[in-house]
């Protein structure tokens, strides 16, 4: 057996993250090279969805508790960033309900993004403190009730959100590469959380809540931590969304987006980061292919064209089939495996193991 260098050990440890980052990098690089602006926008949009899905995964994947409500934190983040980055003169007239200090400031994109993420995290923290004590089903429904409540509030809070109309004029600094960088950062956050003791503790509670409690794990606290982190990540996705489109509408943060992001996570496999990422890639790619087919595609002398609207039906059917034949998702709860064999336990532990067996033998019948 060859000795395992420290470099290989580190590589192996971070492989699940590095491999996913590499896959995304290749996709973004290739799309960048095509120079197809429309395709680049599709990929940027897909990467924003990826950030949402990774955010949902941080809570849902590690805790095993279904969360329907994540999109509300995206909305909170998106609007918070808009309040911080719009021109003061614009805000004075269109959003008179904002407090003066918000009307008069205009932050740079990066501080605004991080602050808005923190605002979303704080909202998520407050919600989590309230609801995480109950049983998983009640938590799921409560997250949904919070989504529905938040949606109603923003839809009617004319003086700061413009209600059912759109806020326009957000600085449009977000492009495909910026989405890619944030996707990497967010995947990093999710990965380091997952291998931290907090992530491990929460995954234990997912596998067996009774045993987890017996081993000193406070499930309430662990769920609150994950939910807050999840709110932060999804909030950042909201910020990017707003500054990518330059326009914000409350209606965007509702059941259809909840559905598509949850579907991406579950289709990819909700129990691993790789599942979250693969789900987004696969569904985004499938949607794009169907969209092309609707326009009509030539395969040799054959012209294949879908009737408008059939792509959603096919997508729905594919999701159903995946749920039937691969309920744990495409990745089945696994990360991308290290291609060069299984990890080996430290040699000291194995030698001591052998000694332990030897030492035990004479004592048999003690």
């Amino acid at each position, binding site marked *: 057996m060859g000795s395992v260098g420290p470099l290989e050990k580190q590589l192996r440890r971070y492989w699940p993250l590095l491999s996913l980052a590499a896959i995304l990098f290749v996709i973004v690089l290739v799309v960048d090279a095509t120079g197809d602006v429309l395709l680049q926008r599709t990929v940027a949009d897909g990467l924003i969805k990826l950030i949402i899905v990774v955010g949902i995964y941080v809570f849902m994947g590690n805790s095993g508790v279904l969360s329907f409500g994540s999109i509300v934190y995206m909305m909170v983040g998106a609007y918070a960033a808009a309040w911080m980055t719009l021109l003061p003169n614009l805000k004075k007239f269109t959003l008179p309900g904002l407090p003066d200090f918000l009307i008069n400031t205009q932050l740079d994109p990066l501080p605004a993004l991080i602050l808005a993420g923190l605002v979303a995290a704080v909202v998520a923290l407050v919600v989590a403190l309230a609801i995480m004590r109950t049983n998983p089903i009640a938590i799921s429904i409560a997250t949904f009730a919070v989504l529905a409540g938040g949606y109603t509030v923003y839809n009617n809070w004319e003086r700061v959100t413009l209600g059912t109309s759109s806020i326009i004029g957000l600085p449009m600094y977000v492009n495909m590469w910026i989405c890619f960088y944030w996707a990497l950062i967010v995947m990093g956050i999710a990965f380091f959380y997952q*291998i*931290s*003791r907090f992530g*491990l*503790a929460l*995954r*234990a509670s997912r*596998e*067996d809540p*009774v*045993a*987890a*409690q*017996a*081993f*000193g*794990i*406070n*499930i309430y606290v662990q769920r609150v931590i994950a939910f807050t982190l999840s709110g932060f990540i999804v909030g950042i996705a909201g910020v990017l969304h707003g500054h990518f489109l330059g326009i914000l509408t409350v209606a965007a943060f509702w059941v259809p987006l909840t559905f598509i992001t949850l579907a991406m996570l579950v289709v990819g496999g909700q*129990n691993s980061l790789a599942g979250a990422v693969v789900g987004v890639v696969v569904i985004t790619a499938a949607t794009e292919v169907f969209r092309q087919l609707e326009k009509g595609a030539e395969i040799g002398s054959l012209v294949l064209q879908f009737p408008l609207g059939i792509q959603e039906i096919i997508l729905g059917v594919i999701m159903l089939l995946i749920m039937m034949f691969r309920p744990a998702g495409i990745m089945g*709860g696994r990360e991308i495996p290290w291609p060069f064999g*299984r*990890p080996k*336990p*430290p040699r*000291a*532990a*194995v030698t*001591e*193991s*052998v000694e*332990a*067996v030897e030492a*035990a033998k004479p*004592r*048999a019948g*003690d």
Partner: protein
Amino acid sequence: MSEAAQTAVKDDTERLETNAVSVHFEGLAALEDLSLSLGKNEVFGLIGPNGSGKTTFVNVVTGFQKPTRGTVLLGGLDVTGWSAHRIGRRGLARTFQAVRLFRELTVIENLEIAAVGMGLGRRQAEKRAFEILAWMAFAHKAYDQADTLPYGEERRVGIGRALATAPRFVLLDEPAAGLTDAECDELMQLISRIPKDFGCGVLLIEHNMRVIMGVCQRIHVIESGKTITEGTPDEIQSNPEVIRAYLGTKSEKRRA
């Protein structure tokens, strides 16, 4: 002796005690005035026929069930009515009848979680987990996923997981259930080494008389929630009441 033992709590005069613990379900007494006490240098057995209240007792001691009356003392501290995770952190570890491993995680992660639950960081937890695996000669399966293990090994990992918490006391809930005779022998060796190597008392709840008589220094017998007697294996085996209540009937059938 491994390093695992050295990190164990040093005060070996501590005891795990229950005083007159009673549990009533809708007027029915599942446990009635159960008192017992064990030290850190012994393996203490609790036996009784099915439905005698052993499971209820386990749930009370580990914080999954509040007693109607009575107190549980862990190292002199009253932990009655504490939540399960606090009792776990205080130094009482346990195994489960149904094993309850974290099935989609690896063996080493299962042990790490127990150490993490005590407040250790990931690296220290990993180190400790490997020490325990080395102690029980199981390091070669560290990276196997828990739900791929055969039944007997699952139970072994369950005990390792309990020990990874560096507990003051460990409660083993029917660890021999479903094991072959050979596996029982291995288990007995393992259990009898725990007090010596970890400075940790063992409360063993078990049906298998061979295991109980083979490893326990003292045995407490209950029936219908009440104490019948307590004594050394020899005393228990010759106690006519125990034989009538338990040994002569159910255990024989069970072992057959």
